[in-house]
């Protein structure tokens, strides 16, 4: 009787707690400080090399279309391993990288090189002590001078360098030359010109803007970035980032209002429902077929251009987003795409640093990688036309040169996924949906954003913003 009662009670307790199971967390008994001394090894954390033995470095990176993965392995991994007989680099292509990485790193495992989708992501890892500082290596390899300063700044926190930018990007307006020619349109540079074309396109039952966010909710923030940059202007945005003005500054609110107006007018694919439901394959097909006129997207899209325009590759072209207000100059909003960092648990950080140095070390090698895998791995170093293989697309070279110039001159715009802190960035992505369906007014959106941003500023979570 006693035993059975005890057991029953014990199991009732187990039922309650077991059924109440909740989400992932490492047992709190193993506090981060303690794990540094423990041997948290996995197959992905290499053992220290005895002299003569190879040191293994593991790098988890984003999956890509098959061919690109092969090219990357050939152009980067193989060249590195050939040049460094003591180190063996292994690059693994991981599906759903950011999700799996968080799980692994938190568990004390994970690769030597931590690649995240952007500065806001890596900030969390830094705060948790998972990233090793890079300042000494920066000095050793001269990264402060090889890599564009603004891009390096994006990887600093509290004055220390923690991450390097793997790729840098900008957002532009893609179009189909044939579509414009067939309809008698010129590339617009002002708001009036843009709206004129949009209205004419609408009348002809074409989509003024082809974008849809079913495949990536973040498309919302590409738009917000462009509208803020080209209506409110980069100076205003900069001031808000520094909190010298607030996010509900009239110019910033009007930018959102304008974006929303265009959505309600049906410029984006005819209706907001269509915008919400459409994924990239259709977006791309519409630009190629002439069913849509403009595509606001970034340099990452270069890798899809050849398959998007298989029969007439000469038709695609990029231009700067038109200025949406008098006096605002067209510009390139720049962003750091993926970031690279060294796992604080990496056994041999010197070897890992060698791998990182290989990314930025040689302009021609970097250019070859970009040539074979366009749109990603656009390392923010000074690349010249001559560095590229002769058959590199001229349009690509043009944008790289322009981005390079913008980087050096400091005359660039701000992309939300690089210069905003994590919660604010997520807010922008998620809540624009609500603005589009009318649940939030642009003013409410802006003031709520201000609240969240101010809170993150107070908690010291802002990424560094280089002076203008």
């Amino acid at each position, binding site marked *: 009787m006693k035993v059975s009662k005890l057991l029953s009670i014990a199991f009732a307790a187990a039922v309650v707690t077991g059924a109440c*199971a*909740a*989400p992932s967390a490492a047992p709190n008994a193993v506090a981060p400080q303690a794990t540094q001394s423990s041997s948290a090894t996995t197959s992905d954390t290499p053992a220290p090399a005895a002299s003569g033995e190879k040191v293994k470095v593991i790098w988890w990176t984003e999956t890509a279309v098959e061919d690109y993965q092969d090219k990357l392995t050939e152009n980067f991994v193989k060249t590195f391993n050939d040049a460094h007989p003591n180190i063996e680099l292994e690059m693994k292509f991981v599906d759903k990288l950011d999700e799996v990485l968080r799980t692994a790193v938190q568990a004390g495992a994970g690769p030597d090189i931590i690649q995240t989708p952007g500065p806001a992501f890596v900030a969390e890892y830094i*705060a*948790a*002590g998972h990233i090793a500082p890079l300042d000494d290596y920066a000095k050793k390899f001269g990264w402060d001078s090889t890599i564009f300063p603004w891009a390096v700044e994006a990887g600093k926190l509290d004055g220390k360098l923690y991450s390097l930018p793997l790729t840098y990007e900008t957002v532009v307006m893609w179009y189909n030359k044939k579509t414009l020619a067939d309809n008698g349109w010129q590339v617009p540079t002002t708001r009036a010109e843009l709206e004129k074309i949009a209205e004419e396109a609408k009348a002809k039952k074409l989509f003024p803007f082809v974008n849809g966010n079913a495949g990536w909710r973040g498309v919302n923030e590409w738009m917000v970035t462009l509208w803020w940059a080209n209506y409110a202007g980069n100076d205003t945005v900069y001031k808000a980032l520094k909190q010298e003005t607030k996010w509900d500054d009239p110019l910033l609110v009007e930018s959102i209002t304008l974006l929303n107006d265009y959505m309600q007018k049906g410029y984006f694919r005819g209706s907001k429902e269509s915008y*919400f439901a459409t994924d990239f394959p259709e977006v791309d097909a519409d630009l190629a077929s002439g069913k849509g006129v403009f595509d606001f997207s970034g340099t990452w899209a270069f890798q899809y251009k050849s398959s998007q325009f298989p029969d007439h590759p000469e038709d695609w072209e990029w231009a700067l987003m038109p200025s949406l207000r008098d006096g605002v100059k067209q510009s390139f909003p720049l962003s750091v795409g993926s970031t690279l960092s060294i796992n604080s648990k990496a056994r041999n950080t010197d070897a890992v640093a060698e791998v990182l140095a290989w990314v930025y070390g040689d302009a021609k090698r970097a250019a070859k990688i970009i040539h074979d895998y366009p749109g990603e791995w656009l390392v923010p170093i000074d690349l010249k036309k001559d560095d590229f293989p002769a058959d590199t697309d001229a349009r690509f070279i043009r944008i790289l040169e322009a981005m390079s110039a913008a980087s050096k001159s400091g005359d660039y715009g701000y992309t939300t996924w690089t210069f905003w802190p994590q919660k604010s960035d997520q807010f922008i992505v998620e809540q624009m949906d609500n603005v589009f*369906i009318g649940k939030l007014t642009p003013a409410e959106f802006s003031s709520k954003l201000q609240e969240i941003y101010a809170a993150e500023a107070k908690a010291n979570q802002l990424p560094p913003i280089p002076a203008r």
Partner: protein
Amino acid sequence: MTLPTANPARPISRKRPFFQRVVKPWLFLLPILLLNVLVILAPSLSAVYYAFTDWTGLGDARWIGLENFRRLFTDEIFWQAFLNNLIWCGLFLTVPIAMALLGANAMAHVRRGQVFFRIVYFIPYVMASVVVAAVWRNILNPSIGIGVQLANLGLPWADIKFLGDTRTALYSVAFVDNWHWWGYLLVLYLAAMQSVDRSLYESARLEGANRWQEFVHVTLPGIRPTLVFTLLITVIFSFLAFDYINILTGGGPANASEVLSTLIYKAAFRRFEAGYAAAIGLTTSLICMIFGTIFVTLRRRGMEI
């Protein structure tokens, strides 16, 4: 809970030693117990702790008591998600069950081709959710999918952006999941129907019952245990629904198809709010537990269900 059994276990006499009475039976349960503790219970227990912290998924966790829960109950998106789960539950307690009953009943009387029908109806169920979602995503495509095709053929109202319209998003996803799920129910009901005593039907017919009356008064009662089982699992799975929503709409647009499980996913993996995600998870489990307990208590009270 005492599970009703056809043949209750023999009463174990007090005279048998402790080993025989207690330890030996538990040895049989040892494998499942150990595995469960290792893989499910232990990780989950450590996670319960995090529901009461502000953990971000990386780094230290600071105890904040019931703060997460307070936030949860005042978050309108949480209530929207909960409502969506309830809608999902309502949809799945009706549509697939009705379809499966209809199909099984129609099939029970049919000799020819029964095997063929059974197989085809069941195939969607054996397909992985990623495959089913991909297939339907294509069919519901806003540019070249069925809506647009029908519109081109002269039915302009058919051009609905299924997964992009806040009014239809949740229902469209439920439709896809239903396509996958109902075959499983059909197969269960069919077998249950086939073991209902034929003579009951004959006596019903002799009393002049028509097909509908036969169905309601003979078939349904005859398959009651199976029916109830499917009701229970439908309710519980409704609160855990994740795959299709995550793949097809991600909870969007604008939270229109948000459910509890997508909230958890986003909180943990997109917004670095693992503590908050844990709180939502705990709440979800509690809800499931409540329903499970209701079912079990009803049975215990001897309610003939």
